[in-house]
């Protein structure tokens, strides 16, 4: 992948900022998401909550299902590959997917290596729960980062933990002296030049969204106030009582995340939120996949 292509891929993520990316599993759901104001959709056969419930091995979705969703909407369509499964990524590139999510939500294919994303023309977004993971994924060619959170739980605590970890580590790196950066790069196991970028600019070199456990407009606004540039909502929408209404409310919450009056208004009467699982009830921590 040349530098120009990488810039274009980072640019697409910039255009998604301030937006909500919604998990959908059918063309109908994709249309509901688009009509509700989603900036993009993530096509996957089973949303994380169902993956969690079903257990077993979870893989890239059927290309036919992805194509059905691509045909149904005009907004960007993303899809997931297993961590390290570069052939699934080749398949998604052949489908001209707009963004590949190399995702811990699926069962990892490789417990050591991530996909070498520099070999692809289509962009990749990867999960991270701290600055080290984020910069390692960027070094491998990711052009967008999202916090991992804990997918399929409807519990926002892990997403909060991860975005806080990221922003506080960034502040610490900013405060270092130049000559301390070499040691910090060694400690974080990240390339020096990427760490230097963070030191000088105070943010990641790519767009950073929040994901994993966002279920309400207030959750989405919380992530934005904590420094996320946009939000992925997975199970939170189509596992709730009134998906269309909740989706619209979360879109508005991400735009006006700093306005409690508007947040109060849109949080009204949304029907039942997804039931959710507490983090201490979970047996499988997806966020521990792919460090």
């Amino acid at each position: 992948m040349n530098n120009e292509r990488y810039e274009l891929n980072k640019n697409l993520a910039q255009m998604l900022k301030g937006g909500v990316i919604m998990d959908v599993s059918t063309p109908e759901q994709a249309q509901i998401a688009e009509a509700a104001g989603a900036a993009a959709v993530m096509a996957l056969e089973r949303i994380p909550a169902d993956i969690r419930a079903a257990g077993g091995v979870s893989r890239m979705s059927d290309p036919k299902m992805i194509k059905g969703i691509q045909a149904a909407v005009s907004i960007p369509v993303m899809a997931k590959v297993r961590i390290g499964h570069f052939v699934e990524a080749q398949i998604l590139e052949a489908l001209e997917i707009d963004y590949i999510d190399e995702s811990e939500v699926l069962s990892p294919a490789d417990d050591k290596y991530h996909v070498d994303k520099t070999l692809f023309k289509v962009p990749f977004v990867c999960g991270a729960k701290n600055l080290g993971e984020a910069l390692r994924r960027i070094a491998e060619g990711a052009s967008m980062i999202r916090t991992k959170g804990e997918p399929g739980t409807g519990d926002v605590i892990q997403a909060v933990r991860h975005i806080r970890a990221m922003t506080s580590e960034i502040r610490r790196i900013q405060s270092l002296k130049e000559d301390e950066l070499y040691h910090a790069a060694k400690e974080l196991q990240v390339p020096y030049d990427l760490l230097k970028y963070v030191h000088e600019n105070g943010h990641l070199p790519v767009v950073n969204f929040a994901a994993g456990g966002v279920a309400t407009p207030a959750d989405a606004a919380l992530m934005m106030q904590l420094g996320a540039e946009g939000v992925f909502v997975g199970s939170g929408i189509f596992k709730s009582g009134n998906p269309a209404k909740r989706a619209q409310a979360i879109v508005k919450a991400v735009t006006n995340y700093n306005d409690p009056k508007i947040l109060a208004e849109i949080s009204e009467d949304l029907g039942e939120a997804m039931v959710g699982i507490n983090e201490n009830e979970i047996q499988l921590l997806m966020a521990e996949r792919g460090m």
Partner: protein
Amino acid sequence: MRVGVLALQGGFIEHIRHLQSLGADTFEIRKCWDLAQPMDGLIIPGGESTTIGKLLNDLDLFDDLKKKIDSGLPVFGTCAGMILLAREIAGTETVYFDSIDIIVKRNAYGRQLGSFFTEAEMTGIGTVPMTFIRAPYIESAGAGVEILSVVNGRIVAAREKNVLVTAFHPELTSDNRVHRYFIENVIRI
């Protein structure tokens, strides 16, 4: 000079940085009471036109903004912004501001693999770096529209009276001359 930047979704911060580098004051427009302040110009950024279009209506911004544009407020739309300002969007019944007599085609270069970078001439400016991200182009333009740039046989920048549009994203490069053009040739006329 104060320029309002529609900040509902998309790449609005990049526009704000360019405007500030040219000495303009800026403010973000996210809700209807943001429109109470005086405004010499308006920018509608790139992002998803369906998202921004929906939020314009849901947040009660559309009617007031349309009145302002119709009565001559200088406005600059990039990519999704151009779609929102067009008279017609090819293949759909949807129309938003209907402020410039052009027919635009959405996602005209295909999906993200069709996104590209080039440099081309823009009337009144010179050679401009142009970033096209899942971009639209202008399929046809009415007689009153000045065509400012053509890339690969497609119209990618145009102007009619107080309305300037580009299919590409001048806010994504470090070159701020298109914004300077907006300030000097559209706002200060």
